[in-house]
């Protein structure tokens, strides 16, 4: 039997919008293998962000189940979900979400310190090195280029050794060339540190870099598409 690091079964998310019911997700069975790099592609409003938020424990489903790293998120309380996110998930956002008053190194180790754990200095240094940030470790985010800021965000996601990294349009704010560069690097470090990576994008070119593409449309996974899905 295949073991999945992420598995959703019949996932549904409905919102009420005035008299309407919006079906953001309408029965999604989505699975990710360990150390796989999956791109979820779809237009805005297709439900791809909602799916990512469910997997990351940022949102709760109307119906259906989410399993991540062998645990069901359904029964978790708010506190448990917060701990789950802190320990198991590394997030990378479109707008980097770096703390402007902390330098690169401080930003990278912040989640570990917030969790009250010891910082593995060697490991952190290694991450900064592969992401080519060693020289910039003392720099404040405001002094960095967009690509460098996103690299710092990648380092932060890796530093806590999460079970899975979720990236929400990580190249959305970057020009084509540096976006491509950052994603290439993300792909390389994910392999190097044996990380599982799920990324959402609307950019076909970016999605092409993944091991597998999942196409989502009107809250459902479109069958028969994707590379070797």
């Amino acid at each position, binding site marked *: 039997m295949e073991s999945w690091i992420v598995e959703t079964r019949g996932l549904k998310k409905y919102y009420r919008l005035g008299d309407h019911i919006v079906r953001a997700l309408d029965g999604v069975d989505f699975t990710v293998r360990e150390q796989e790099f999956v791109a979820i592609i779809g237009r805005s409003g297709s439900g791809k962000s909602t799916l990512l938020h469910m997997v990351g424990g940022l949102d709760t489903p109307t119906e259906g189940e989410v399993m991540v790293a062998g645990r069901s998120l359904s029964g978790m309380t708010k506190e448990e979900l917060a701990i789950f996110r802190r320990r198991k998930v590394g997030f990378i956002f479109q707008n980097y979400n770096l703390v402007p008053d902390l330098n690169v190194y401080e930003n990278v180790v912040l989640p570990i310190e917030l969790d009250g*754990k*010891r910082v*593995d200095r*060697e*490991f952190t240094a290694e991450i900064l090195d*592969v992401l*080519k940030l060693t020289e910039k470790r003392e720099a404040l985010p405001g002094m960095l*280029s967009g*690509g460098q800021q996103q*690299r710092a965000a990648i380092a932060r996601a890796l530093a806590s050794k999460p079970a899975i990294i979720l990236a929400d349009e990580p190249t959305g704010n970057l020009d084509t*060339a*540096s976006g*491509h*560069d*950052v994603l*290439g*690097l993300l*792909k*390389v470090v994910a*392999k*190097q540190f044996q990380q599982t990576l799920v990324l959402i994008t609307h950019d076909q*070119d970016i999605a*092409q*870099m993944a*091991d*597998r593409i999942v196409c989502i449309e009107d809250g459902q996974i479109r069958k028969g598409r994707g*590379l*070797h899905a």
Partner: protein
Amino acid sequence: MDWSAVTAVLAGCAAVTAVWRMYRLKREVYQFEERVESALDDILSGKGMTEGEEGVTDSLWGKCREKLWRVNRIWTKKEEAGRREKELMKELISDISHQTRTPIANMKLYQEFLQEEGLSGKGREFLGHLEGQTEKLDFLLQSMVKMSRLETGIIHIRQQEARLYETIAGAVGEIVPAAAKKGIELSVDCDEEIMVKHDRKWTEEAIFNVLDNAVKYTESGGSIHVAMKCQEVFAKISVRDTGKGIAPERQAEIFTRFYREPEIHDESGIGIGLYLARKILELQNGYIEVRSQEGEGAEFNLYLPNA
């Protein structure tokens, strides 16, 4: 004597003792937690544990440490077994490659002898096929040996700061005869000064495999263009051809082992060139990608991290 004062003092003493005991207990718990965590960190990071003398004490930490030490030992033992297995595999592979070399060389030799015998027309035709198949077998075996060596980590990739231009030139030089034979125009646009940390021999092999593939899938009169560009993080080598292109749904498959485009089974090859190329780049913390539309040629991009 004022009994109430005595009671107060006694109660005070009791309270202080209780607080002090609480404090000690708490400290012990914290200390224990810290020890367990640091021991686990050491095990996880591969530093391992030594058998300390706390292991023989009957304290909670002593018992726990003893267990942790055993876990660590089992783990290392398993790792060692894995390593030994890899060693054996390595020997087996080198044996296979060594032992098959001689019979294949002999087969080729006898085939040459046969050519000098007066064979009938049919005989010569069969001999031609035999030679072709022997060549294929030879190539297959060599490729498989190469592949298994790369995969089991037997081959060491040595990345050294060197001019990427020279590596590209080496690969292009090797492909010139095949391109010329097919009447394919080959052009290179490349900055000679760019230095990149890479393994010259293996990177050359990767570039050659991509070029070889381009020649194979480009018809006579087409062209192949090699270019290089330095980006913020990666140096990019691109190989663009005017061949038949690759349908999007096959683009991920072409990098898998033994993949062959269904339409061209008559071309030689076994479908491991691109697989090897990808492996070589991955081992150097780079990657490879393809951009193509069916019928509009293909562009393979090889990325190596900038020094």
